[in-house]
């Protein structure tokens, strides 16, 4: 009997950043490699500009769709504060890959809170295995800032227990036809960031 331990990916970001698409690509790639897959996300009020997470787990047999804090293998964050918010969910040695973009929360925009200027330093102090990249810049280079989530997928591809080609296949069939080339280029630019595993 093969034993493939359950792999936990937590995706965090802000509503509208493409957490759902990223979860979809990863779960389909895991399915293609014959893993049992569970994925969980929250809809409704939680999506209106709020903090959003997606849980993705795959292995030989997965029962829970929720990850337990402290057991995340890869934390994939699309925004700096949303990376910091979930650092303690990582297992010892787990990888944090995050987009260094800063998105103001409603509390910051209303002048009720400050966006922490030292956010990158705080993350670096809290965790060793960190890969920070300006995914928005790379996505813009590929053709649209909207593909920053796909850049991030490329950046962590080598740290995942399935092939980048499997992810590429899913991206090809799950994004709007007109945006396939842009997204594949975003994925390639992300992969070129070797720092992430």
């Amino acid at each position, binding site marked *: 009997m093969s034993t493939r331990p359950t792999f936990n990916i937590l995706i965090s970001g802000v509503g509208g950043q493409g957490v759902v698409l990223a979860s979809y690509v990863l779960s389909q790639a895991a399915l293609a490699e014959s893993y049992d897959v569970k994925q969980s996300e929250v809809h409704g009020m939680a999506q209106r500009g709020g903090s959003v997470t997606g849980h993705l787990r795959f292995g030989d047999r997965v*029962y829970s769709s929720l990850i337990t804090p402290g057991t995340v293998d890869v934390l994939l964050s699309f925004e700096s504060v949303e990376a910091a918010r979930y650092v303690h969910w990582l297992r010892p040695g787990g990888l944090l890959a995050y987009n260094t973009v800063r998105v103001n929360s409603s509390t910051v925009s209303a*002048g009720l809170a400050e966006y922490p200027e030292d956010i990158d330093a705080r993350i670096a102090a809290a965790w060793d295995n960190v890969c920070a990249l300006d995914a928005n810049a790379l996505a813009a280079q590929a053709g649209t800032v909207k593909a920053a989530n796909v850049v991030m997928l490329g950046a962590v591809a080598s740290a995942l227990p399935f092939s980048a080609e499997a992810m590429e296949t899913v991206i090809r069939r799950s994004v709007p036809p007109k945006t396939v080339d842009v997204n594949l280029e975003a994925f390639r630019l992300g992969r070129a960031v070797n720092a992430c595993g």
Partner: protein
Amino acid sequence: MAKTAAPERPGAERRVEIMSGNEAIARAAWEAGVRFASAYPGTPSTEILEALSRYDDVYCEWSPNEKVAMEAATGAAMAGARALVCMKHVGLNVAADPFFSASSVGVKGGLVIVSADDPAMHSSQGEQDNRQYARFAKMPLVEPAEAGEAREYVKAAYELSERFDTPVLLRTTTRTSHSQGIVELGDRVADLPPITALDRDPAKYLMMPHNARGRHVFVEQRLLDVAAYAETSELNRVELGDPRVGIVASGAAYGYAREAVPGASFLKLGLTYPLPRKLIADFRTRVEKLYVVEELDPFLEELIRLMGIEVDGGKDLVPLCGEFDPGLVARALSAAGAPGVDAGLLELREPATGELPDRPPTLCPGCSHRGVFVALRKMKAFVSGDIGCYTLGGLPPFEAVHSCTCMGAGISMAHGMAKVVDEAADARNRAVAVIGDSTFFHSGITSLLDVAYNQSDVLTIILDNRTTAMTGGQQNPGSGTSLAGQPAPEVDIPGLCRALGINRVAEVDPFDLEQTERVLREELAAREPSVVIAKSPCVLQFKIRRPAWRVDPDLCSGCKVCLRAGCTALSLANEDEDDGTRRVEIAADVCNGCGVCAQMCKVGAISGPEAGDRKDAR
């Protein structure tokens, strides 16, 4: 939603797909030959009907509310079709009357009622455990643990429904409805005969006292029959492992417990009401300790204890509030001394990155509700709110909604307040009701009828954005289209209000702050029932993009008044090198050009892309 299964060609081998629990319920309903499905949107149930409406051969509708949806589905089942009705947990409160009636009259075609509960209240105003409804209405209850099971259980529920002449309550939680897993696909039952005649069976369907007495006897016997069936049903499963630890669980909690104590013995219950006494008693004899792991109420635990079966731990170990995860269950059972707990789940680490700004949900940039809340905040009005995106008007910086309980209650609660608040009270203490279009159609109409009929001087603001926004933009009776995308009559809201007996009905453009505030003040001052309709389509649902506005840094004084617009496109820049002032910036990629902040600016520092866009400073 590329991930939704389209009906596939038959004849292939084992077909699987990753689906959410909600999509799996829809798939199963289609496979089971369901011909009628109704719902009112509500997180986390909404996607069931959205997914089912993409299959052929199933009539699907958004009903105005859950009570209507339940009654319509009961009628379809009475006529002989398999029917599905879906709602969120609090929707079943709205539908409670026909829910109990449906239990009494039973079915001809199978009837499955989906209640999607929301432990942790990700998008709800309450955390009730709707398993209690099954017991209350004496109806069988099934609880899938994951998407694959959701498909199997829906099909089993239709067989149960028709075999025992009963509706079946299928209860999910957010983590079964919105979690995805691998689902096997089947085909739809073939050759459903057309329905051409309605049965005349008054003893079963005509619930007058004489007949209803007979049905009550039937329902009590039905429960005993289903309990006997539950003893051997495949929905209930014993998984013998370590005899030292026995765990009874259902739904998502089973998955958490299964990972918390991987080697334990499990009684995994899928048919959770009525419970199989012999099966549970037998499981009890095979284990040293028996624990019940369930979210929210001690539903299973109390029933099992009532059977005289000893339970070693339940709600004394796990919380009554919120949702679980494997770590929570592991720590609870470890504290109780259970052997075999996964040690890797026990450690609880604290965040180590210092204080971070909260990121609560908020009104979208360009949202048509913003201007109304800016005006209401300025008026310091007491706002009796309702359920929808506009409930977010209660959060800072608006803080302009002061009560919100359940669908439609904003108007009727304001009416109650108006009847007891002294006439001499100032305008700030005269309740203003705020309600969205879909919530108004759902259950605000009868409340407004109360205001008109019993004459209270309540000002009701109807925020008409032409959609059911919070749940993702579903059609409603004001949209002009149905769930199937067919043209539908559009409710004339001003005409409806007048027909109810409201003489003062005004409309405002919510992006015109001056007009909005002026009309609201006038109508609040009127000593009679009044309705103001703020009409503008939802920018999110209708994908409305307007060019960004900009701040002239030479004019901005850094007074921060515009920040009260509560818009994520606005922010304070770093201190100016020369004068130390923190001026406001607009993020061009976030701004949706509504111009509300510009109208708040006292120095005219914010202007739009067109020459005439700069508003007069006020």
